[in-house]
């Protein structure tokens, strides 16, 4: 397919791709390097190589607390988003459900709008209702943020299921509950797992909504942000590297989960 006319643009675009990827990954590589060695005047002082900044991290109670908070928030909001996402997907599955489109618009809204709007609207509401800010409000914020992803994955999978599947189940005398338990949920399992991984990844990283509703609680991004204001230390770099490794691992997991459906779509062309 590639003719002579495409050679030169292809080489240029390839060069640009390498450059862009380098720029995109530079933050990761640089912070990983900085966390173990000292760099002075452009030279890396390899003799300063040390993992001690990782060790001090484990005795930093505020970091550990933030880590625990982040884990609680991520797991709780992923679980809530999936639960509600599945329920909503079942409802909107039927073409003549009342308010189907409006509900979908509402679900997608927090994902599409700038997070600052979601964050401050929750802040104003919780304050008007007299709800104290803390982990609970962060969980609410993250849940409505990742709900769009959970809903989208489940509803797409539901729509792809042949209606005959449900009819067959009913013909065989299954109750609606049995159909849900033995037919629908097993078919949804893979999209539920993918949704959970994506939701965890997004929640782990979420900063802008959290800063509005966290009150005096700290999640890991908020703690990092607070530490960054003070200055650069090897300890921050160590934490940064650990955070990046976790996000990359989660992202790879999500990518690996999404790949089968992606290559199926590829071969159906």
């Amino acid at each position: 397919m590639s003719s002579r006319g495409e050679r030169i643009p292809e080489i240029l675009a390839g060069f640009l791709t390498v450059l862009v990827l380098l720029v995109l990954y530079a933050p990761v590589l640089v912070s990983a390097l900085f966390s173990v060695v000292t760099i002075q005047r452009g030279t890396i002082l390899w003799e300063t190589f040390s993992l001690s900044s990782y060790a001090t991290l484990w005795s930093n109670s505020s970091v550990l607390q933030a880590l625990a908070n982040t884990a609680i928030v991520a797991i709780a909001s992923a679980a809530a988003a999936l639960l509600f996402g599945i329920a909503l997907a079942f409802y909107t599955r039927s073409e003549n459900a009342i308010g189907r489109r409006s509900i979908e618009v509402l679900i997608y809204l927090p994902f599409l709008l700038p997070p600052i709007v979601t964050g401050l609207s929750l802040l104003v509401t919780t304050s008007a209702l007299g709800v104290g800010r803390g982990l609970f409000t962060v969980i609410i914020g993250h849940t409505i943020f990742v709900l769009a992803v959970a809903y989208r994955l489940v509803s797409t999978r539901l729509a792809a299921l042949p209606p005959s599947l449900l009819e067959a189940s009913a013909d065989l005398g299954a109750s609606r509950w049995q159909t849900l338990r033995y037919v629908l949920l097993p078919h949804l399992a893979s999209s539920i797992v993918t949704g959970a991984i994506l939701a965890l990844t997004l929640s782990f990283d979420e900063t802008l909504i959290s800063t509005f509703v966290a009150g005096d609680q700290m999640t890991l991004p908020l703690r990092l942000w607070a530490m960054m204001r003070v200055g650069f230390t090897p300890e921050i770099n160590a934490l940064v590297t650990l955070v990046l490794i976790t996000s990359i691992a989660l992202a790879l997991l999500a990518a690996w989960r999404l790949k089968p459906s992606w290559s199926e779509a590829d071969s159906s062309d």
Partner: protein
Amino acid sequence: MTGHAKRWLLFAVVAALPVLFILLPIASFLITSFFRVEGGVILADPNLSNYGAFFGNWTYLGTFLGTLWLCLQVVLLSIALGYPVAWFIWRRSGTVRYALLLLAVMPLFMSYIVKLYTLRAMLGLNGLLNQMLVGIGFLDGPSQFFLFNQRAVLITMTVIYLPFVILPIFLSLERIPRGLLSASADLGAGAFDTFRRIVLPLSLPGTIAGGLFAFVLALGDFVTPQMVGGTTGFTIGRVIWSQFGLAYNWPFGSAISAVLLAVALLIIGLGGYAASRRRV
């Protein structure tokens, strides 16, 4: 109970969650935008003074227009860099293609705050960029050119939001039927003609979608300008954030956010329209 009433009851139960947690908060901040603050207390006294203060004061309106211009630059730069990358990845095949796509998209999931932190370190006076430029002799000494100004915000936002642009462009290229390309070649079109008449128009919806996505994200971002923007990199997001922090004027902050929301909705609507119109 009739079937009709049952359906409405079901609707009420199902809609409760999105209404309570999504619609109600948006409605309540819109209502707050008509209130005012006096002596540190928010008074429920509906009036338009916040909107008057925003549109009547060049400091705010100018910052808002400046932010829109900044976001537009971010989008144009992201498309200029992202389109060739997406195109190059699309032209690969098999594992290379998937691996490159993964590499280009994965930064989406890499901690936002960490990227800010390292980019700030890299753009600074003793940062990697300055050291490299001095090292190759491009600069005589480290320069303040790259940090704590509007330029730094532009560079940082582009690096952060670029993957959001690459992915939709790639997906729209991916959707072009292979048959169209070979048909074009069979009819004697050169590579450039095929690109201009088929590939480019058909990948336009994805390009627009990616650009608008980046625009909306950049529009509301208040942490990036705060971290790398210094005093000249002031954006509307920072103004809103300060109203909810030190300035403590929630109604005014809500009013500016309402304007932001209107712009964001307009852009999302335009994007949806563009995507539906140009669909193959």
